[in-house]
């Protein structure tokens, strides 16, 4: 168990100009569950592979505990990794797969058996110990890959989208299993995913990456409530935040005939007249058409516990705003004319030119 520190770590793939990971500064606390999230090509997997030693670090340093591991071989870093495709050894049984590391380290046979059995018990794999991976289901293979990591009792767990090959139902179940297992073992974990729901539900803290650059690293709550820029605002949360580009004039942000006032600090932080207004689906109040922004309901998605209305405002028929009516309000129907009012506490303001959040 140890702290992990990325210090200006950069990776430039040979033959490319732009870095895949660009001077990444990240401190992961001892025992923390850190999730790296971002769209494909954001460098999250590259960052993980740099930590694993599978990818060279072109600039900067990486520390595990107090040790500088920048130039240390993967096998000497005392880490365990779970791969997206599990990377099981096909010719070995489940027990041999889990015990591979211990066997290489030439531990006594009795100890290997004991530790493999413990790991298998933890993951409900005991009945399958003598099977080969080809005869396991996807979920079982995933658990074998987890077992192979757990049995090592490493300083750091690295997980590269371990759930992306499971079906939706199993993914949700395994998500909580992994999170609770990590809490129980208390091992520092770096978890890569492109799924912001996974990131929000599993991580103690979440680091959002885009084009190799760290955007924001904070607790899921803060990422959701105070996204640092338009990208994070749009990426975290599902369905995503409504981002509406508008402009500033006489004292406030103009939105569909209304004025949202700006504080002097917000005004000072603005680099131009363009402001992006961000309101999450649950941040709207539905009122009668003549009170709020008039709009027509196009589609209603009924999910049982929630429902989402896709509405087209009258001022711009090409735009769609996603609205989640709160439980106190009646769910609108397709074709209804409604009025929308953003709740003041739910409004996020960003500078359109830079994408940066305006100070509160």
């Amino acid at each position: 168990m140890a702290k992990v520190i990325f210090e200006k770590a950069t990776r430039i793939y040979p033959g490319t100009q732009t870095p895949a990971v660009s001077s990444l500064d990240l401190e992961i606390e001892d025992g923390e569950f850190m999730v790296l999230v971002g769209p494909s090509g954001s460098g999250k997997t590259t960052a993980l592979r740099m930590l694993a030693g599978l990818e060279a670090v072109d600039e900067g340093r990486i520390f595990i505990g107090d040790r500088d591991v920048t130039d240390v071989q993967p096998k000497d870093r005392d880490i365990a990794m779970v791969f997206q495709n599990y990377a099981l050894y096909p010719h070995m049984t489940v027990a041999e797969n889990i015990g591979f590391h211990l066997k290489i380290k030439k531990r006594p046979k009795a100890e290997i058996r004991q530790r493999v059995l413990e790991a298998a018990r933890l993951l409900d794999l005991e009945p399958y110990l003598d099977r080969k991976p080809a005869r396991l289901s996807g979920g079982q293979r995933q658990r074998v890959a987890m077992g192979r990591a757990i049995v090592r009792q490493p300083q750091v767990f690295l997980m590269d989208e371990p759930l992306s090959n499971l079906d939706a139902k199993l993914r949700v179940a395994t998500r909580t299993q992994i999170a609770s297992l990590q809490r129980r073992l208390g091992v520092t974990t770096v978890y890569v995913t492109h799924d912001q729901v996974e990131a929000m539900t599993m991580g103690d803290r979440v680091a959002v990456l885009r084009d190799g650059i760290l955007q924001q690293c904070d607790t899921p709550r803060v990422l959701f409530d105070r996204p640092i820029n338009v990208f994070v605002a749009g990426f975290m949360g599902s369905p995503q935040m409504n981002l509406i580009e508008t402009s500033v004039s006489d004292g406030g942000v103009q939105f569909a005939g209304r004025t949202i006032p700006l504080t002097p600090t917000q005004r000072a932080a603005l680099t131009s007249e363009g402001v992006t207004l961000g309101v999450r689906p649950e941040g709207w109040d539905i009122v009668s058409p003549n009170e709020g922004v008039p709009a027509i309901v196009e589609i209603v998605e009924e999910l049982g516990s929630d429902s989402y209305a896709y509405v087209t405002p009258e001022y711009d028929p090409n735009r769609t705003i996603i609205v989640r009516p709160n439980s106190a309000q009646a769910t609108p129907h397709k074709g209804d004319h409604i009025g929308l009012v953003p709740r003041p506490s739910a409004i996020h303001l960003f500078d359109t030119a830079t994408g940066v959040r305006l100070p509160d």
Partner: protein
Amino acid sequence: MMRRILRPVVVAAGDRTPSSGAAVLAPPAPIRVALRPRRSLRSRRARLLLHCAVSLIMVVWIVPTIGLLVSSFRPSSELSRSGWWTALAPPFHFTMSNYENVLSQQGMGRAFVNSLFIAIPATVIPLFVAAFAAYAFSWMEFPGRDLLFVVVVGLLVVPLQTTLIPILKIFADWGLTGKFLAVWLAHTGYGLPFAVYLLRNFIGSLPRSVFESAFIDGASHVTAFFRLAVPMSVPAFAALAIFQFLFVWNDLLVALIYIGLSNSQNLPMTAAIANLVNSLGGGWYLLSAAAFLSMALPLVVFFALQRYFVRGIVGGAVKG
């Protein structure tokens, strides 16, 4: 055999479509049901065509072999009078005398042992060397790796015959001519480019993450080679072993050049069979029996290893 291997794959592919799609996308299901008969009809027709082609090729290849087998049991007097297919109709006149004759020939038993003694090391040595090389070309980073690989594969175009005289000269200088070691070395050299090429392609296409996982688990290259690359490449080794064994077993030229008629006690069966005609003149009717004897062992080898041709063992390594 082919059918049995193919069927589970087809079933698995069919299973996947409904299971992944049905839960999320209910609407397309009826469309798929409607399409199914037509698609299966088309695939059945394609399969029929495939079976016909395979059967035709098989017949073309197997008829001469059957002819050889039948001829080897016919008396010499009938052999020269009528075609082998006439023997298939009664009255039957089969005899073992050809085989008795061949087996009683001087040196035939010894030649058989010589052939084994040449073919086994000449198969094992290049396989070992090629496996190491293939692993290095696949999973070890070193400068000039790709260039070196291209050079090795480029050696495939060098005709074996152009090397005979220079290598014979070298072997003569080293005092190797007439010895088994000369033939082992020669066959190793001739077999390596293809062996390296085939094994590199196989080992290089094993899932990268399996090796990365092993390196993180603490494996060195030596461990990764023996515990991962070798066991996962068994089908490729088996295929290559059969090729190389058959090539060496059927080889006459290399053995004749590097061992030479003057060291006839070391010559393999191919040379002994060739001598059969020379020494007996009209004894050509013995050829069919001798040829069939020399085919027997390769057939055994092939049937022993043929399951590795069709069955891969990589299943289950990555997702699936």
